[in-house]
């Protein structure tokens, strides 16, 4: 589904990604871990098309399409979803209206008829249940005055509505207490199918107790320096990132 080859990216004059290689197949969950500043969030942002980052080399193929050539909205329409680390507050735009616009623009792109208000609401009700979000939140301005947990739940709700092929969760666990974490993780797990894939970007192993990865990759100084199964996450938790740093210095 996703094939990243030798990806380099910089922000301003600072090179952050220095040759990323990663292949993700349908049905898989990949965790990307690493110390602060290793480039985890940059990778997520570059995949979603954030403009501040300049790709200086490499390729990203997404189901046969050159992802790097697409505008952010077309990446979303092709099936990429980024759950933000810091979801943005937008006063005056309700989540419902925003999602209705998004769903229908995606449907238009895919040559489908727009959903009318009734069908949209019935889909929405179903997804609301799935991700355990309070429906009254969705009538309010997008994320405005939401708690950290409510914002992250809203991200997963949007993911449920858009049904992406590839979901990228950027530090979705940050700022969540254990109950919120469990609800968010449950939502993600319920949305998993054999046809979609998930990339979980996280600093801590904690989230991976709930969203169990098939593969764990360790990012350090802009490169994937170690890959393994879910046990790698536990090893990292036990030994800390200094273990990786030391190992890299020795090498």
């Amino acid at each position, binding site marked *: 589904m996703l094939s990243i080859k030798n990806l380099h990216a910089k922000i301003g004059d600072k090179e952050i990604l220095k040759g990323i290689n990663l292949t993700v197949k349908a049905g898989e969950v990949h965790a990307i871990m690493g110390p602060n500043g290793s480039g985890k969030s940059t990778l997520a942002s570059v995949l*979603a*098309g*954030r*403009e501040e980052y300049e790709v200086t080399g490499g390729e990203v193929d997404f189901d046969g399409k050159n992802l790097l050539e697409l*505008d*952010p*909205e077309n*990446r*979303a*329409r092709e099936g990429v*979803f*980024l759950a*933000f680390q810091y*979801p*943005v507050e*937008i*006063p*005056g*735009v309700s989540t419902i*209206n*925003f*999602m209705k*616009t*998004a*769903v229908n*623009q*995606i449907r238009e*792109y895919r040559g489908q008829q727009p959903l009318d208000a009734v069908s949209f609401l019935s889909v929405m009700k179903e997804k609301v249940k799935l991700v355990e979000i309070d429906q009254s939140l969705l009538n309010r*301005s997008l994320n405005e005055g939401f708690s950290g947990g409510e914002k992250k739940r809203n991200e997963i709700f*949007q993911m449920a509505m*858009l049904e992406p092929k590839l979901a990228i969760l950027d530090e979705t666990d940050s700022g969540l207490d254990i109950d919120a974490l469990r609800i968010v993780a449950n939502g993600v797990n319920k949305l998993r199918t054999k046809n979609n894939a998930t990339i979980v970007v996280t600093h801590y192993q904690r989230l991976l107790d709930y969203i169990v990865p098939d593969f764990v990759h360790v990012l350090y100084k802009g490169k994937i320096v170690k890959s393994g199964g879910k046990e790698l996450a536990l090893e990292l938790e036990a030994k800390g990132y200094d273990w990786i740093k030391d190992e890299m210095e020795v090498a």
Partner: protein
Amino acid sequence: MSLTTVDKTKSEEVALWIDRHLSSSPALNDIRKNALTEFKKLGLPNSKSEEYKHTPITRALEKNFDFSLSNASSKGIPQAYKIEGIDANVLVFINGIFSKENSSIASSEITVSTLADAIVKNESIVTNHITKYADIKADPFTAWNTASWTNGVFINIPDKTILEKPILIYHINDATAGQVIAVSRNLFIVGKSSEVTVLEKFDSVGSENHFTNIVTEAVVNENAGLNFYSIQNDNSKHFQYNLKQVQQTNSSRVNTYTFTLDGKLIRNNIQLVLDGENIESHMYGLYLLTGETLADNHTVVDHKKPNSFSNELYKGIMDGNSKGVFNGKIFVRPQAQKTNAFQANRNVLLTNTATVNTKPQLEIWADDVKCSHGCTSGQLDEEALFYLQSRGIKKETARAMMLYAFAGELLESVKHPVIKDYLNNIISERLHKNF
């Protein structure tokens, strides 16, 4: 200083223009002559005038108007200037002259008439109030207006009268055959425990320049309410000076709504004097500017007595080479304890050539008050745009959503459903709302 000389010459030309337009009304002769004297003393604002620092109105008049000319006669009015679907009292003025055939006054329980008629019929109530509030010494355009107004609307609402039908005042400039200078004057008196909604709207035909100088004095008595809308959406040949001087007494409620959507140069002065207790005042303003439009909103809220509340929200979206100016003064006098006064001005600049100058000015002499102000100006939030795009929404839709949401807060403040729909349609189209 050549500029000063030019200004002075222009002031002299305008003074001569005013002199020719000192229309005859014995009751007001002294007032008018006095105002002309005051105008000559003040002269038109120059580049050093603090109140017109960012608004070169004198230069604009100089470039675009010949004050030796008189208005050409009117040939017609635009097709669709009225707001459809409102059951209302309608007064139409063409080049400042009342157009009886286009007007209809339906509410019998009130006195709505042209100011000229009111002076003839009911001299004392008019002369007791007119020119008592709008200070001719404070602004040369007010002096100009006071000296030479042609006509206007007199609204006198008796006590305990809730006027269901709003009063719509359409000002049309017919600049087909030549430039137009229209000078209008209104006087509104809202009786105790009464309520009225007034809307003024400005339109034109023709392609020549036209300048409207309009002053409204309003007295809102105890427990009375006034909703006062202005829709300024005329073409790029339109210049306007607009003063609303509102006098409020105990427990009165005033809401002003100023929507400046087009024009060449628009200067709005709104001055609310809160001379009583338990007053509530709201000033709402939206300026949606593009091209070469300049819109300048100067507002004053003067809290003179304790226990009153005022709130002001002005927002602007500046596109093209447009220019926004906001100046908000709040005075809280020493005896006005327990005052609550809030002010906010928010601006979005869509191009590098659009500008805004915003200045809050709070002068607070009382110590037990709650006052706040805030102003922001900047571009659309890129992170928010990216967030919307990352959900599959086109960039232009994302922009439109954010701008519409920004302006929407002011649309929400509009209480009258038909006026709200009317404004919503214009604003939606202007912001390319397609979601």
